[in-house]
């Protein structure tokens, strides 16, 4: 268990409650018993190396440098959609898009509907559930049903036979790039002045991310100095927390569902060549970094306003635009049923380490200094 790209602190915590004991030497890393924090299970910074007890490699999703080519969200997402379409056409693979009915995946589907050729759209398979349809029925019945191929979420599987013949498009990373749910909560309370406040002026900084503690706060501060863009306000701080600390864990955790049936080399192949993730695309990340002030202003209308507006300009569903609220993605249904329980770590060759293996448990015990 060396050169890890993923380590699940929640899985470790689940088998050894003693990890939380304040007298335990590494207890500070096991803070996931704080439900309000939603600290990622895989703790890593995308801009600097953390001094973790386990051996982590550099980030597999380093924060991209440089400025975006455009300040327009629509131009950015369509630039990415064009690139994805080109890739799909070149490789002639079957494209599957995970559509939850929510903002992230709907915005990606809109971009494809706008830029993709008729030929590509005829191959596109929309993977969704009844809950996805319920969440955005108007969109489903006007733009998907009878127009695109549809596959029930529960029937989708990546296998050893198809892993190198498909590409998967999903909206993962959307929350982390566009602003973690903590921002939605503050917006619901209309605490816009608080969001505008310079974070350095908050007397108890742990209140910025409720449930956090000084260790976590200092981890965030340590990373801020490496941020390519200034982190000034409370809004920026919360956004940075998601963008730097939650992003990678979110994208890797979901991979465990996709590669549950794959060998390490196949998993690596799928990760490197089979995943087209719009919100993890460097250009989208750059747009996000350089649009912080814009997004902070627009949150007064709605969280993820740019996505809402982009979808509204396409489908003119004013009710969804006005009242759609961020909620847990129904796509999670897939991850729940496809997820391989017990995976505690993945190394850079995509070997997966399961807590069900005695050798993994022994190694883990040594790494964590528990034996």
């Amino acid at each position, binding site marked *: 268990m060396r050169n890890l790209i993923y380590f699940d602190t929640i899985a470790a915590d689940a088998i050894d409650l003693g990890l939380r004991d304040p007298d335990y030497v590494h207890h500070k890393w096991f803070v996931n018993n*704080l*439900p*309000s924090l939603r600290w990622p299970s895989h703790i890593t910074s995308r801009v600097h190396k953390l001094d973790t007890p386990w051996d982590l490699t550099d980030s597999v999703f380093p924060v991209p440098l440089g400025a975006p080519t455009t300040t327009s969200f629509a131009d950015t997402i369509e630039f990415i959609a064009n690139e994805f379409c080109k890739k799909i056409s070149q490789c002639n693979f079957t494209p599957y898009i995970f559509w939850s009915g929510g903002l992230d995946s709907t915005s990606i589907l809109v971009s494809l509907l706008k830029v993709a050729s008729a030929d590509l759209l005829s191959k596109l398979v929309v993977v969704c559930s009844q809950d996805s349809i*319920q*969440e*955005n*029925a*108007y969109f*489903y*019945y006007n733009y998907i049903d009878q127009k695109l191929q549809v596959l029930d979420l529960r029937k989708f599987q990546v296998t050893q036979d198809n892993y190198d013949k498909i590409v998967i498009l999903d909206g993962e990373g959307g929350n982390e790039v566009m602003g973690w*749910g*903590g921002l*939605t*909560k*503050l917006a*619901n*309370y209309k*605490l816009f002045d*608080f969001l505008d406040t310079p974070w350095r002026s908050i007397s108890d900084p742990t*209140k910025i991310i*409720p*449930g956090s503690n000084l260790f976590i706060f200092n981890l965030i501060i340590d990373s801020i100095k490496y941020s390519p863009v200034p982190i000034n306000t409370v809004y920026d701080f919360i956004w940075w927390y998601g963008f730097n600390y939650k992003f990678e864990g979110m994208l890797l955790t979901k991979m465990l569902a996709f590669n549950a049936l794959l060998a390490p080399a196949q998993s690596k192949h799928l990760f490197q060549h089979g995943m087209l993730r719009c919100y993890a695309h460097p250009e989208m990340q750059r747009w996000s970094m350089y649009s912080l002030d814009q997004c902070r202003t627009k949150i007064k209308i*709605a969280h993820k306003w740019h996505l809402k507006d982009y979808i509204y300009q396409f489908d003119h*569903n*004013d*009710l*969804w635009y*006005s*009242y*759609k*609220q961020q*909620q847990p993605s129904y796509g999670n249904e897939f991850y729940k049923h496809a997820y391989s329980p017990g995976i505690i770590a993945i190394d850079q060759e995509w070997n997966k380490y399961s807590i069900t293996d005695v050798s993994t448990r022994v190694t883990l015990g040594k790494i964590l200094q528990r034996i």
Partner: protein
Amino acid sequence: MYSRRHQHLYTGPYGLVDNYQRIIWLNLDSEEYAGVIKKTFESKLSLRVVDLRKFNNFDSATINSRTCMRWQLPIDVNTIPDVDTDFKKSLLGLCSNDLLNGSSTFLASTERVSELQDQMLLLLHILSLHNNIKNNNTLLVTEQYISEIKKIFLVEIHILEIEKKLCALSRSFLGKSNFPGLVMSTIGCSPYA
């Protein structure tokens, strides 16, 4: 200019409240129907069913389907979903047990808000009619009909389109139950076309 089309009067302790603005869109006496409306309007509004009796100043004589949209739930840990107690306590000290009057602001235009509430009132009226005529012989066909009705309300976002589709659907069910005729009368749709 939209003029109200379905001004049925309802009142009751179960409020349909939107998660963002905390506005009471409708209050009725059936928790079951409140749940059906919440689910059917899920694509249009993030609603929740709240028992309004827990608020000190709730009075069903004052708060009804014609007045409820002027009322709003207070900001409180119990009135906003997806907000945990730690979060609230750390940022707010607010705690009120009174409904707020006259402070509602809407995200959609006034006309669309009226239209949306009319959509809910129409569905509620249809559900109430259904309850009144339930009879075992036609139950199966009625359930299918009701299910199709809910789908129309789920998918369509404009009331004229909803009424048009309800009319077409009801015509296809005429003769199988006496319920479609009642629905057609409600929306002013002729059975003779």
